[in-house]
């Protein structure tokens, strides 16, 4: 019954959105800012990946807000689960199968490396801090599934998260004093296009975001997995 009502409501919403979107030509450019980014992003920010140059270059302040939203969400989850009370630790979890626990030993370092690769190369290849952080958190999720006794070092995760958040804000504040004098200004040398050490503050910020998001989401998984009875 509920599913049928849900399907009917979904159909109504779908038809409504479809009719209202029918008037707008799909894919037609509505502003000229997209063309500006595609033409000038490489010279302006030094990053090869235009998406990254928008996310951490032109719109870096919005990204700081985004990181704050994720931080507050993780904090809220931790607060809610902490007030739910109960003992810490995970008792009564049956051990994982041999395939999962053996596969974890080989896959865990590789997934961590892949996540680190994604956020250190965010200004060159697709991906960036958020994607790399999520990949790192999924590596920790694999550990939680395969070896029930293991837990992340909670104070280490908190320290990583705080330090990388501070690095982001500190780099933004340094932009006020050096270079072009605005918050999150790109004051470091831009270097050669398409090399690892290029694009000024963008790789530094993306490394900070990657570590922050990774430790935050790993902390979320840790909060959810632990037994609260």
């Amino acid at each position, binding site marked *: 019954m509920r*599913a049928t009502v*849900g*399907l009917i409501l*979904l159909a109504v919403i779908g038809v409504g959105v479809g009719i209202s979107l029918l008037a707008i030509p799909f894919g037609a450019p509505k502003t000229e800012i997209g063309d500006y980014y595609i033409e000038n992003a490489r010279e302006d920010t030094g990053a090869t*990946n235009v*998406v*990254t140059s928008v996310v951490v270059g032109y719109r870096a302040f919005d990204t700081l807000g985004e990181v704050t939203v994720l931080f507050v969400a993780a904090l809220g989850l931790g607060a809610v689960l902490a007030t739910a009370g109960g003992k810490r630790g995970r008792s009564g979890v049956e051990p994982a199968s041999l395939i999962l626990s053996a596969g974890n030993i080989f896959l865990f370092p590789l997934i961590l490396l892949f996540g680190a690769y*994604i956020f250190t190369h965010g200004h060159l290849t*697709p*991906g*960036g801090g*958020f*994607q790399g952080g*999520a*990949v790192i*958190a*999924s590596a920790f*999720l694999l550990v939680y*599934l395969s070896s029930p006794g293991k837990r992340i070092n909670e104070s280490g995760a908190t320290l990583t998260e705080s330090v990388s958040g501070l690095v982001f804000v500190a780099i933004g504040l340094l932009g006020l004093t050096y270079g072009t004098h605005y918050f999150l200004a790109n004051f470091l040398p831009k270097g050669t296009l398409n090399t690892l050490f290029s694009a000024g503050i963008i790789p530094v910020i993306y490394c900070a975001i990657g570590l922050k998001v990774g430790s935050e*989401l790993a902390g*979320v*998984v840790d909060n*959810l*997995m632990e037994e609260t009875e």
Partner: protein
Amino acid sequence: MIIIVSLLVLAMLVAAVAALIYRDLLSAVIASCLVSLLASILFFFLQAPDVAMAEASIGAALVTAIFVIAIRRTKRYEE
């Protein structure tokens, strides 16, 4: 190109409807995971690899895990 995209969208719709009508919540979560996975392939074909990566790692992996943990804490079947 348009055929691949249409097939992906069709498969996403089937998985989404399946997630809605399953009584077994674990199956419903796996079906919604399939929606995310197909969406990430679709993003890749539409030349948005950045979004595809985020969708695959957050939508398909972490959100599914959080739902599965929630089901383990509550109950598996819908009344």
